[in-house]
Structure formats: C-alpha cells, structure tokens
C-alpha cells in the first residue's frame, strides 16, 4: 500500500528498478548504515488524507481567538494586500523554482528580483540593494556587520528607540564577535543626541537608528549623519517602507545603509513570517553587501538578461571568509513586495502613507480626549504613537484582549519606568468606527 501518494512508483516499477541496481530489496540500499545505529523508535503518528489534513489545520486555526481588531504594530502591520499579490506570487512557476543559479531557465525570477532591487533603491533613495535578507531584525544585524567590515572598527552604537527585537537580534549576532554594542537610552521617545555625541569616537563602526522609531516618533537624522560621518562611522537607518510614501528617505538624511522589514509591502501577518528583510546602500559599499545580488548583462547575441552577480562575496565561493553565511533568502516575499509596490504605484504609496497618518492622527485625538490619558508630544508621528494611561498598560491591554481588541503594545516590557505607556498603531485598514470603538473600550477599561 502506498502510504505517501506523492511517491508514484507501482510495485512492478520498484522491482524493475531494484533489478537494474542489482539488489533484491530497498532495505539493502540502507546497508551502509551500520545496523547498531538504526532507529529503534519512530513515533510520528499514522498519516491521513489531504482532506483530513486540511480539517486538522482548520481546527488549529479555531484554537486561536477569532477576529482580533488590531491596533498593534511593533514591526508587523495590518495593511491592505491587493488580490493580484496572492495570485501572481501564487503562480507555481515562481514559488516552486529554486535559486536562479542557472540564469537561462530562471529569467522570470531574476528579472523580478532586479525589478525588486530597483524598487527598494527608489523607495530608500539608495544606489544598490540586494535580493532580500530574512527579516528586518536580521537586516539590522547584517548592516552592522557590514559596517564592521568596511571600517575595521569594533563598536556599534544603537539608538534605544530602535525596535527592541531588532536590538536583541543585533546583540545575539554580535555577541561572539568581540564587538561592543552601546545603547543610547531614549529621551522622551526620541534619540538622545547629546548622548550620541558623547558615544561617538574612532572605535565606532556604525550608528543604528530607526524611523519612525518604536515609540512611533518621526525624526530627521540629517544632522546626525554629519556627526557620524565626522567620526568616520556609517549611519544605518532602519525604516518602515510604507512610511516612505511620504517620509524623508534614508539617503535624503545622509544614511549609508538602509534596512527594514518588508512585511508591510503585501505580505500577510501570518503569525510573524515569512516576510523579508531589505538592505540597500551607497554604491561604494556593494562589495561588502551580504546575500544575493542580481545584475544586468547581455548574452552573445546582445540580448539583455539578468544573473546573480558578485558571487565571490558569498558563502558557496568564499566559505568562512564570505560577507555573510546567508544562502536561502526570502525571494518569494520580496517578489510579493515588488508586486505590491508595482500595483499600488508611485502616487498610490504616497496616498496610502497619508491615509495611515490621517487615521492615526484621528485616533490620537480620540484617545487624548479620554480622561487621564496623555499623548507623547516630543515628535511628530506616522501611524503609531505613544500614549500614557493613568495606570499600568499591561493590565488594560490584557483586559481588552478578552473583548477581541488588541489595543496596543505596552512599553513596560521593553523600557524601564514605562509601565503606563502604550504604543497604538492605526493602519489604513482601520475605519473611523473601529477607532471610535477602541476609544470607547479603552475609556471603559480605564474606568473599571
């Protein structure tokens, strides 16, 4: 009986193949494994039909709380995904292909990723982009390692307003590399520029900032860029790509490397992944970039085509001297990002960004009207903002979760003395009615 219907051989075919090989059973082919090492147990449950499998997966979904109304972000955002994104990225010529090492039969993937790199460059204002990294957090770590290589220095300075998960991943990546990570404590939810000035010296390879930051604050880092460059270090800016519909680009601020998470560009929340990380930089840094890069060239007849280029940076050639260990990236989700950006288009992205800000500003005003609630006013915001509640945010959020409302991310878990602070996110998907509902429920929860 064929336990896996994805294994196609009939018993006769198996016999023919065994005869061709010159063995009498499949088991004989496993003879190279010493018998005393063979598995003594194998406790995977018996298999089932496709129909039953799908039903089991539906049952798992049903074990999660249904229809949560999201006002949470923290790096992942509930945005519109045009139908074309699923349909086109769902073409199996894209999703069942491998890495395009054979360019003649992979021009679809290669041209799409070249177009993706172009989109990332145009979004960030940078000159060069790779073909994606794992996620936004690991992209921050890769950018830091890139700066360490370029400068030959051994210290990374990080704004404490950068997403705490990105900072944690950065520390994990750098822990074994004899690199010091210095964090600048936030000043009212913004970069403490005096402390940064003090931390800058000739041992600093890079300064990592984020815009908008974890508190939701939007800043201009142009002046910082001059200071950082004056100290011989690189400025790395982590950015939220949807916000770049209107906000100043990392290149416009003088950053050398731009990174971020591409989830917001047409990728579902999907409990945290897959999304993709992007990294883009000034042209001079291209040979220190991690991961795959697609380049344009021609064939013998002069026809334009695309190939993986500068592969001498990568692990399959350079092994332990590679710019990174990355091999698989998140190509399919970068493709989704490209389809999203091509679909929403030049004006559409700006309009979408404005819509996010308009909704968030409306929400900010509604929440500010609740007695005892104040808004962090230190800087303008995009689609996330920080409010201070009259009592610890954790209990309030836990309360509202029971009502199907994810009201925001309490900052107490991530910053000292911030127990009452809550970061609220409002994307274009939230309606005025939903925002009013949040304000009403929050007010009610605070009265309890």
């Amino acid at each position, binding site marked *: 009986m064929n336990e896996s219907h994805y294994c196609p051989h009939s018993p006769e075919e198996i016999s023919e193949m065994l005869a061709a090989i010159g063995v009498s059973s499949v088991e004989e082919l496993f003879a190279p494994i010493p018998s005393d090492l063979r598995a003594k147990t194998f406790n995977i449950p018996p298999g089932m039909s496709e129909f039953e499998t799908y039903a089991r997966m539906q049952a798992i979904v049903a074990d999660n709380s249904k229809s949560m109304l999201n006002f949470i972000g923290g790096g992942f955002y509930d945005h519109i995904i045009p139908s074309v994104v699923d349909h086109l990225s769902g073409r199996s010529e894209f999703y069942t292909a491998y890495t395009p090492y054979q360019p003649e039969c992979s021009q679809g993937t290669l041209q799409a990723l070249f177009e993706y790199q172009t989109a990332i460059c145009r979004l960030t204002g940078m000159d060069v982009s790779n073909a994606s990294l794992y996620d936004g957090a690991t992209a921050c770590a890769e950018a830091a390692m890139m700066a360490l290589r370029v400068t030959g220095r051994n210290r990374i300075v990080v704004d404490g307003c950068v997403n705490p998960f990105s900072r944690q991943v950065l520390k994990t990546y750098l822990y074994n590399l004899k690199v010091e990570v210095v964090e600048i404590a936030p000043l009212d939810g913004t970069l403490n520029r005096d402390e940064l000035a003090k931390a800058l010296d000739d041992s600093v390879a890079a300064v990592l900032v984020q815009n908008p930051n974890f508190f939701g604050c939007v800043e201009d880092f142009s002046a910082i860029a001059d200071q950082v460059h004056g100290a011989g270090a690189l400025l790395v800016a982590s950015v939220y790509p949807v916000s770049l519909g209107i906000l100043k680009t990392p290149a416009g601020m003088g950053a050398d490397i731009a990174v971020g998470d591409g989830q917001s560009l047409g990728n579902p929340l999907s409990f945290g992944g897959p999304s993709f990380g992007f990294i883009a930089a000034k042209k001079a840094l291209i040979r220190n970039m991690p991961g795959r890069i697609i380049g344009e060239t021609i064939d013998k007849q002069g026809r334009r085509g695309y190939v993986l280029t500068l592969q001498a940076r990568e692990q399959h050639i350079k092994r332990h001297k590679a710019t990174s260990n990355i091999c698989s990236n998140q190509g399919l989700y970068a493709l989704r990002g490209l389809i999203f950006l091509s679909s929403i288009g030049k004006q559409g992205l700006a309009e979408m960004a404005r819509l996010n800000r*308009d909704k968030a500003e409306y929400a900010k005003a509604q929440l500010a009207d609740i007695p005892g609630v104040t808004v962090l006013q230190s800087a303008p915001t995009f689609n996330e903002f920080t409010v201070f509640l009259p009592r610890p945010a954790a209990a309030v959020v836990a309360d509202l979760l029971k009502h199907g409302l994810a009201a925001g991310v309490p900052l107490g878990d991530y910053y000292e003395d911030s127990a009452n602070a809550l970061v609220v996110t409002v994307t274009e998907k939230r309606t005025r009615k939903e925002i009013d509902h949040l304000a009403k429920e929050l007010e009610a929860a605070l009265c309890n």
Partner: protein
Amino acid sequence: MQLIYEKSTPGRNGVRLPASDVPAAAALPESLLRTEAAGLPEVSELDLVRHFTILSQRNFSVDTNFYPLGSCTMKYNAKVLENAAALFAPFHPMTALLPQGAACCQGTLGMLYDLGQMLADITGMDEVTTQPLAGAHGEMTGIMLISAYHKAKGNKKKYVLVPDSSHGTNPASAAMAGYEIITVPTAPYGDMDLELFKKAMNSEVAAVMMTCPNTLGLFNPHIKEISDIAHSHDALMYYDGANLNAIMGKVKPGDVGFDVVHVNLHKTFGTPHGGGGPGAGPVGVKKSLIPFLPQPRIVMDGEGQFLLETANQLSIGRTANFFGNFGVMVKAYAYIIMLGRQGLIQVSEQAVLNANYIKEKLKAYYDVPYDMTCMHECVFSASKQLAHGVHAIDIAKYLIDKGYHPPTVYFPMIVKEAIMIEPTETESKATMDAFIQVMIEAAQVAETDPQALHDAPLTMPIGRLDETKAAREQNVCCQW
C-alpha cells in the same frame, strides 16, 4: 523583455484605496518629508498581471520541469500545504507577546510546539526551536548554542572542524559565531578522512559540523567513532540536516552522537523553495543545550497551556523577529501529519531507490568518483567528457534545451567537474528514464559534436550570459 518600469505611464494606477473617513491631518514639517515621490511603476492591474505572468513563464520550476538539483531536494510541493498556510494569514505575531496574549494564540503556539516535538522525534533530539529562518540561519543559531554551552562550562574553545566536502554555509556560519575553521580532507572511501580527523582534533575544538549522508550522498560508516572522539574532547557534534530526506525513520542523528541539528523544512518537508526562499531551519538540541535556546521559547505548562518563556538569562537571545517563518512551519506540519510515520519512511526509501537507479543507469557514461551504494543523491564527474573539451556546465546547458533543470554542478568542490543528481522520491520512473536517456545523449554529443554543447542552450529567451560584464558594471538597479 521590458522591465515593469519601462511599461510605466505617469498617472496610471493599479489600486483604488478606500476613501478616507477621517479628517486630513495637519501636514508634517518639510524637513521630515521626502522631496519627490518614489519612482515606482505606474501600471494598470492588467498590465501588471500580464507582466508577472509572462515573467513566471520564463522560469523552470518543479511544477513544469524535472529538477534533479543535488543537495537541494526539489521534491513536489503538495498544493494543500499552500491552502493550509493561507488559513493563518490574519494572525498578528505581537498578540502572543502581549500580556496574557498567549491565551489568544493557543492554536498557533500549540502547532509550533507539536512541530518541534515531531522534528525532535525524527532527528533524535530533546527539544527544537523553530525560530531560525533558513538552513544557514539554523547553523549559525546551532553554533551559537554550542558556544554558549562551552562558555557556561568554562571551556576555552577556538575552532570548528568541517570536512572539505561541506556546504559553504557551514564554515561561514561558524565564522559568524566567532570560530576559526579547521578543514579535514576527504578519504578515498568518500568521507572525512578518519586518521586526518584524529590528528586535527584537539581540546580547543568546539564542534564538528557534518552532513550525514554527506554531500557525495554517502553515509559515513565511521560516524559513531567520529562523534565518540569529538565528545572525548568535549567538542559537540553538529548535524547539517540538508540531507535528512535520505534517512527518515532509518537512523536518527541523535542516536549516532549528534548534539545539535538543523532541519531544512524546504528540503525534507515539502515546502516550496520560492525561487530562493523562504526556507526554514528549525534547530534541535540534546537536553544539555536546552537552557541556551533562543527566546521567546514556547513551553507547555502542567495544564497543557502553551506559554512563552522570554526572560531566560542563559539563552543566546533572539535570532529573528518572532517565531520564525511561521507560514513555512504550517506547511511542514501539514506535510508531516499527512504522510505520517509510514509515509515518511517511504519518502526516504524511494528517494534512495531513485538516486541509486540513476547512478546505475548512468555510470557507464559518466565517471562516478566514489562508486558505492549512495543514499538520496549521487555524484558524477564529467571528467570523461573533459577529454573532448566538454565541461559539466556544458552538459548542464544542454539539459536546459531538453527541458530539464540541470543537476548541481561544480559541487561538492572536491569532485572535479562534479554533476550532483538528486531525483527525490516524487519523480516517476518514466520521468527518470527519459532524463537518463537525455544524459546518455549528452555524453554521446560530447564525443561527436562538442561545439553543440558549448552553444547550448538555444531554446531559451536568452543564451549564456556575460557574467564578467555583470560583475564589472554592477548594474543592479534600473536607471530608466
């Protein structure tokens, strides 16, 4: 073919956004705004659909072509897996990290926990983290766990030892965890040279990284002895799970002495490769390494509730944003429960059967540098063809014209003109017989008309590309 940017017309729009139902906000200060709109394409939905549909048709894929790419396990990706993953699209990962948020995510957290348990059983490990986002990310995480283990014990370790046939990611990942690399040559019997290994081994070795079966498709008969020697120096054994498809239910890495493994869900567990990603690289460990696992770690309490451990001081910390490539995990979970115990055993058996069948059928035409029973893949050399000036790459390009994705060529690096074939278990005998016939033809053409192989491929939208020009000009972004 034009780029999407070359099809752009100012003012055209592919998406209509919802009308705003709130007042317009006061403008942000100029200094915070971009000076001009990002130069994204401006195309209609139909233009967009045609563009990407035609692009997709310029790809080979598992769904359109046999893809015997060694070391990559390009098996068929069952369609139900895609449907299963789509069910989970609306769940925000932050929900689980909110106060008492885990209670809202018992389905998703429980699935990750169960997947970890099943992978632990398959690999003979005690616990699995699903956080690593790809195979190489798993390797890096695994070596960081080993580093944390040694540091906690006060061991002074400096090196990671790898065979010269290893994947490039092995030494690259070890380097990212701060180790220096010792490379051990391969013996004539096709595996890491045992005597040279013994000489290279010393008390400063933190770990030995191995792929088993190795990249020649051979199961190392000395594996237990190697792990015993490594353990006698308090070095840990790292298992690169790239070739796990060969051994499910047959042998468990944990039983032969491995302490840490990573698993490539996109290879062994039927999740698609996505044109280069996403994959997923869960890491399994033996008990002694559990305290160092990444955070957040999913644990089950006494009442069967799933919780997140986030503040373990011994942990190496966070290696990625949230819980890994969750959608890939859903697919792998569905794959494992659907195939079940016997199904997974059958997968490995037929993967090994198929590879040996191709090896036997082609060995009269191509050199087999290590001719013995292989596991799920076999490695040939185009050295015979080289006598006629034909290289492995020429054979590869000829196959493209015949509708086959080429095997992996020039890897492992220790085989001259390597041609590495991994048919996987999902290919039929008829498909393999047709492929074998074309490989035989290629060997014949190599003798009679080598130029025809140098000229291939001729049937694709483009021919062989000038890679030197690409590297020199570094045109990686459309200037149009």
